[in-house]
């Protein structure tokens, strides 16, 4: 018995050792993609990973890059900056990737950007949005998505033209993303003459379950607008409790992230209805390929996608374009090619510019969406709108109390 076990163990060990790596390992161009695949933010990681895959298959089917196949090495940052740095290090040192992509949570992305810069490997960020990431003057860091302080640019005109709120309460998860977003929106409100009644941060994970006292305070403050920057769980819980507690401001607005995920509507149910959110993208936008991407994603995975997926999908194409144009696969050449990027993607035009403290930052418009009958519809700007916004909202009716 013992000897059998020993043979088995040795066999397994040998098999793992001798097993050939991925067939195309030799002639593929390796790019590392770091995303949260487990943990708190796994849902976002999943939608992005699927989109990267979708793009990868198309790219390789179309001949890859300079005759070589593109290969994505996915790594899991688990939503933890320290883990993110370790896997980045491994991708760079051990797997010898030519460039890096991904980057979901701002805090993790920020920490990972340090590793990329340190090792001078270009890193194309597609979601991590805190301003500080591209404010450090790191020349190997490029960002495809707009910064969190630009998230509400599309919302501003909606507020001034339609809602005209007098005052606002801002609730945010207190990691880098939420904190910076809240600060930015507070400034926006002050600029627009909207009185900020309350800004309250809550820790982004398990400590956030007990929202009742918080919402009771919001209820007493009686604001016109409740602006929330949340990931998925907290977004769901906040809206569910708001419904239960019959908290009825003129409008609930989400600051993207959790509020646009299909899971938000699934889990929050009725409580998600008519909630408005900022978004960076919508399939109905007149961007070439946007609708095709959305449909293809749905056909392939039998589920909806949203802006996070589009960011990932676009990033894959930007990388392909860059790697095709780069003189060689040396980091400096790839960096140079990234700098010269000027292309159209499903996420919008991509061109990395430097302005103010920012370096290598892509600037894009943002939009406003609303959950209508369980569907996320583009409602603003008016000329691009797919559906008319519903405002004012009779919350009690929407929530099924009437």
């Amino acid at each position, binding site marked *: 018995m013992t000897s059998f076990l020993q043979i088995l163990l040795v066999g*397994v*060990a040998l098999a*793992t*050792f001798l097993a050939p790596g991925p067939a195309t390992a030799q002639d593929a161009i390796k790019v590392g993609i770091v995303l949260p695949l487990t943990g708190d933010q796994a849902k976002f990681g999943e939608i992005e990973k699927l989109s990267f895959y979708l793009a990868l298959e198309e790219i390789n089917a179309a001949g890859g890059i300079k005759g070589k196949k593109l290969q994505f090495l996915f790594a899991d940052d688990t939503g*933890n*900056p*320290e883990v993110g*740095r370790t896997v980045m290090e491994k991708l760079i*040192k*051990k797997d010898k990737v030519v460039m890096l992509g991904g980057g979901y949570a*701002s*805090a993790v992305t*920020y*920490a990972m*950007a*340090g*590793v990329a*810069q*340190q*090792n001078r490997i270009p890193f194309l960020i597609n979601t991590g949005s*805190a301003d*500080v990431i591209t404010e*450090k003057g790191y020349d190997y860091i490029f960002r495809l998505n707009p910064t969190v302080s630009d998230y509400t640019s599309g919302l501003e005109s909606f507020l001034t033209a339609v809602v005209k709120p007098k005052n606002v309460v801002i609730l945010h998860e*207190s*990691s*880098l993303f939420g*904190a910076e977003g809240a600060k930015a929106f507070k400034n926006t409100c002050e600029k627009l003459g909207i009185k900020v009644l309350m800004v309250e941060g809550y*820790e*982004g994970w398990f400590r956030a379950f007990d929202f009742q006292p918080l919402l009771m305070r919001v209820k007493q403050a009686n604001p016109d607008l409740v602006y929330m920057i949340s990931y998925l769980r907290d977004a769901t819980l906040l809206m569910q409790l708001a419904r239960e507690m019959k908290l009825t401001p003129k409008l609930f607005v989400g600051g993207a992230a959790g509020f646009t995920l299909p899971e938000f509507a699934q889990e929050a149910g009725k409580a998600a209805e008519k909630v408005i959110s900022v978004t960076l993208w919508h399939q109905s936008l007149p961007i070439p390929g946007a609708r095709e991407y959305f449909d293809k994603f749905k056909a392939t995975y039998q589920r909806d996608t949203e802006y996070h997926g589009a960011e990932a999908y676009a990033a894959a194409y930007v990388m392909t374009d860059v790697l095709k144009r780069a003189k060689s696969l040396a980091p400096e050449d790839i960096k140079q090619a990234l700098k010269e990027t000027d292309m159209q993607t499903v996420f919008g035009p991509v061109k990395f510019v430097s302005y103010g403290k920012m370096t290598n930052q892509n600037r894009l418009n943002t939009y406003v969406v609303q959950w209508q009958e369980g569907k996320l519809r583009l409602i603003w700007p008016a000329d691009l709108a797919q559906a008319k916004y519903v405002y004012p909202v009779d919350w009690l009716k929407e929530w099924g109390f009437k």
Partner: protein
Amino acid sequence: MKRNQVISAIIAVVFIILPLVVTSDYYRHLAILALMWVVIGGSWNLLAGYTGQISFGHAIFFGTGAYTAGILADKLGTSAWLGMALGGFTAVLAGLVIGFICFRLRGPYFALATIAAGEICRLIAVNWESLTNGMVGVLLIQTFRSKLPYYYVALALAAASLLVFNLVMKSKWGFYFVSIREDQDAAESLGINAALYKNLSLAISAFFTGTAGAFYMNYMAFIDPEVVFSLPYISIMAILVAIIGGVATIWGPAVGALIMVGIQETFRSAIFGLAPKWVSQSHALVFGLMVIFVILYLANGVVGDWPKIKRLVVRSR
């Protein structure tokens, strides 16, 4: 005496030459971490092993040192190496505050108080955003791209700490520390100012732990509260390093550091890539199993239980 000095000299030479022989960055990285843990394990050992004050809060000093270096570099733009010179001193300040509060308590209550103090420090680091950047942490760019300078700094720090611990333990202070551990009441009646010497032990311990923390900031170039104020991965790890090597021995924690970092990395890398990937995912589990194993079977550590181990090995042959 002479023989010990010769052995120490040989060990020192081996460690000085080591990175010149081992050129892989990965192994150098492990060596640097191990040397850092030599310092932390030894520091914990001074306070707990020798002075008998079981701290579950060494992350306080590690974190304070790390943040000193980090904040100086991030906010004032000084070199993080300046922070390394200062990190030890701020950790001592933190230590004096902790000592003032926690030394009123003895035994398990002291241990509990240090856990609570550690958690409070972590929460302060999370919440005092204007100073610490909160959960975002402090991000720097390393001074050197090569591992060598870091290796030698860590080596110097480890050597200095061992030297200091050795000198202290051979002096009056050392006798006093051990006396307090064995019986605080008896010690006081023998003219030992227990409060003073406990604080002295804490201060030395905090100094080296803080300096190690500041070194970590320099070397890893990124810290956040969950990393440097971590209960399991700093405070408990410090205890394990000391215990696995041998509590209340000079070389024990040093041996423990090499073993702990070695085993941890062996599993983290899935036995150098030989084993299937799930092995690497289970490295934290292995960490926990080691805690249990060590406490059950090697409660006095490899150095302390060396006779026992030798006997077992010899007998099995």
